[in-house]
């Protein structure tokens, strides 16, 4: 077994185990930490794919930003030592059933589908390429989505402030 295979299975195992723990843990702060581990392991997968830039985004934004935000809100709204009750049987049954059924269907179709890569020469992915494409208005340019997402972020920011403001 080669090293990258070992690496992949290690990361995949981490992701799956801690995903499961995230949704089953009865202590909410622990669940947040498990989520952090999942996100970090995912960024490890991105590194394996040689996507350093997106891996960095994953680490800074997801692991750094969102998880911190979540932990922050947990501290605001919950007692740390509080243990959740077990989920209702009907809910649990419904969730597990949907999960297994959907998972089975999706995996089955993944296994059946013949993935055929293009024959064109691959593009070298580096910061410069990404930057050029991101702000390009021509072919393979993503200036418009970039602007749209920036407006969306601004709107979300204002919305968050307005909603969370006291006394409305």
């Amino acid at each position: 077994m080669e090293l990258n295979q070992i690496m992949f299975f290690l990361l995949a195992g981490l992701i799956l185990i801690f995903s499961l723990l995230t949704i089953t843990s009865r202590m909410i702060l622990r669940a947040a930490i498990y989520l952090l581990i999942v996100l970090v392991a995912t960024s490890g997968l991105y590194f394996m794919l040689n996507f350093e830039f997106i891996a960095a985004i994953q680490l800074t934004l997801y692991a750094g930003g969102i998880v911190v935000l979540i932990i922050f809100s947990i501290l605001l709204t919950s007692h740390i030592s509080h243990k959740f009750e077990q989920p209702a049987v009907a809910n649990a049954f419904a969730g597990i059933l949907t999960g297994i059924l959907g998972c089975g269907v999706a995996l089955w179709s993944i296994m059946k589908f013949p993935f055929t890569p293009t024959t064109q020469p691959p593009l070298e992915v580096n910061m410069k390429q990404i930057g050029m494409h991101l702000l390009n208005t021509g072919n393979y340019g993503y200036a418009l989505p970039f602007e749209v997402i920036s407006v969306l972020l601004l709107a979300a920011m204002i919305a968050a402030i307005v909603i969370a403001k006291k006394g409305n």
Partner: protein
Amino acid sequence: MIQGIPIQCFLIVSTIMFFIGICGFIIRHNLITILMSVELILNSVNINFLVFNKYLFPHQLQGHFFAMIVVAIAASEAAVAIALFINMYRKFNNIEVENINEMKY
């Protein structure tokens, strides 16, 4: 293309993660855990985008940009959601999902 690891391996991991997220979404009562489940779902989708980019269309950067957009949306969604949770907490003194049933018949 990574030596020795077929695309299906990545896809299986992301699919399982996706459905774990859905399972969590349905099972949990606490809104913040539900939000975490949503993050799991988004993350698994992100993996898919990047894997497809790497394995199937390496001459483009589409997967990259979609992944970035998803991350941005996840961030803004988390911000708004948490603002809502705090608002709810003020109202109900907890953030159980059962309390949000204004859409009831």
